[in-house]
């Protein structure tokens, strides 16, 4: 199971990548996709929606169950990955490539409170 060291993580199994333009790209981890099983449906937020940290913003549904996805920091949704909506299985095959949505954070420093790869690995090991 892969936990890339260049990403940040939330305890609720989202990964967060800081882009050069200071926006954040969010997806779900390899561990999360493995636990969910075959993913068949995504419900992603509209661009322009303003969200709080920890707010439910998306839903990933596998054959088995629906899982809520949370905003890791406060900010504004600037884009959803429509290609992933059309190919939900891409989350299984490429969890760190098939992102879900992008956020313009209200406060860029908020990402410092998120887990690094070592911190997330501990959570996965304990699960």
């Amino acid at each position, binding site marked *: 199971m892969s936990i890339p060291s260049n990403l940040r993580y939330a305890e609720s199994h989202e990964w967060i990548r800081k882009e050069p333009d200071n926006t954040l790209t969010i997806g779900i981890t390899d561990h999360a996709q493995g636990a969910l*099983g*075959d993913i*068949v*449906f995504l*419900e992603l937020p509209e661009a322009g929606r303003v969200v709080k940290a920890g707010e439910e913003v998306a*839903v990933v*549904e596998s*054959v*088995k*169950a*629906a899982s809520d996805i949370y905003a890791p920091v406060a900010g504004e949704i600037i884009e959803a990955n429509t290609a992933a909506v059309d190919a939900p*299985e891409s989350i299984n095959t490429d969890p760190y490539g098939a992102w879900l949505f992008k956020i313009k954070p209200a406060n860029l420093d908020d990402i410092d409170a998120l887990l690094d790869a070592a911190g997330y690995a501990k959570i996965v090991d304990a699960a």
Partner: protein
Amino acid sequence: MAKQTPLYPVHAASGAKIVDFAGWDMPIHYGSQLEEHKTVRADAGMFDVSHMLPIDVCGAGAQAFLSILLANNVAKLSEEGRALYSCMLQEDGGVIDDLIVYFFAQDDYRIVVNAGTADKDVAWMREQASKLHGGNVTINPRRDLAIIAVQGPNAQAKVWAALPGTEAAASHLKYFQAARMDELMVCFTGYTGEAGYELIFPAGRAIEVWNALAAQGVAPIGLGARDTLRLEAGMNLYGQDMDESVGPLESGLAWTVDFSGERAFIGRAALEAKAPARQLVGLLLEDRGVLRSHTPVFTAHGEGETTSGSFAPSMNASIAFARVPAGVEVGDKVEVEIRGKRLAARVVKLPFVRRGKVLV
């Protein structure tokens, strides 16, 4: 501590994801539930269903006993090996379990019941036997047996290749008929809507039979795909689509209740006392989303809810069974509520899929 079937070591060694199912450690999938589903529709797959319980009902009073115990009529069975799907009802018409009963002779039947209800079923059967027929019936639970279901368009040919003698013994079988070869019972039954067999035999041979099937290219299939396959096939799941709180007439199972003649089966009086107010129907979600169980359903005749729902891999759509008011008809447009949003769905005829073909 969870119970394990004789095939548990094989599942564990194969890397299956194991979950608790009705107190049993069972494989939910061996990698991909979607792939397993598609394998059964296109080729052949095998399921360890040894958690289910065969119960032998024998003795001079067996037929009379079963004609009272079961809502379907065992008197319809006269050809050796013929089988019948039936509910076993409470006096109030609630469903204790659904089962298959096989006829071998008027004093020799075998019933196969669900895992989660097995203990309750045996206790109920013994209680009824002692009330009705005293010493004329023996009820013998067979935990010494394993059950492997082999399902798919190529399933029967692969069973014939894997298990010598089965082609001669079973190739003539009709749907819902079984043949016995010494201690191996080959049943042309299943829970997927595909052709295939359910094999019932001594548990000590389970791993040998599993490996022989695997050598013919029969893929192991977990309970996850079993659920989506049976849902597409329009087959009820006990505990989800019906239970003790609801009768067969409100569960899409009227076809399994035999009201002909005066046969006083348990639950008959209650079923005849009032017309069913609800019915179980098939739903196809027309908007994007995934139906699950207990999704609210809004119809022109009032509200209902889904009992089973899932993504249907053969259809690339979401489907469900829903218990809705009587009066709702096939073709009706209804709405379902998922995460606070109303989505469009349509009432469709069951099954959704049969023998690899999508019917809706």
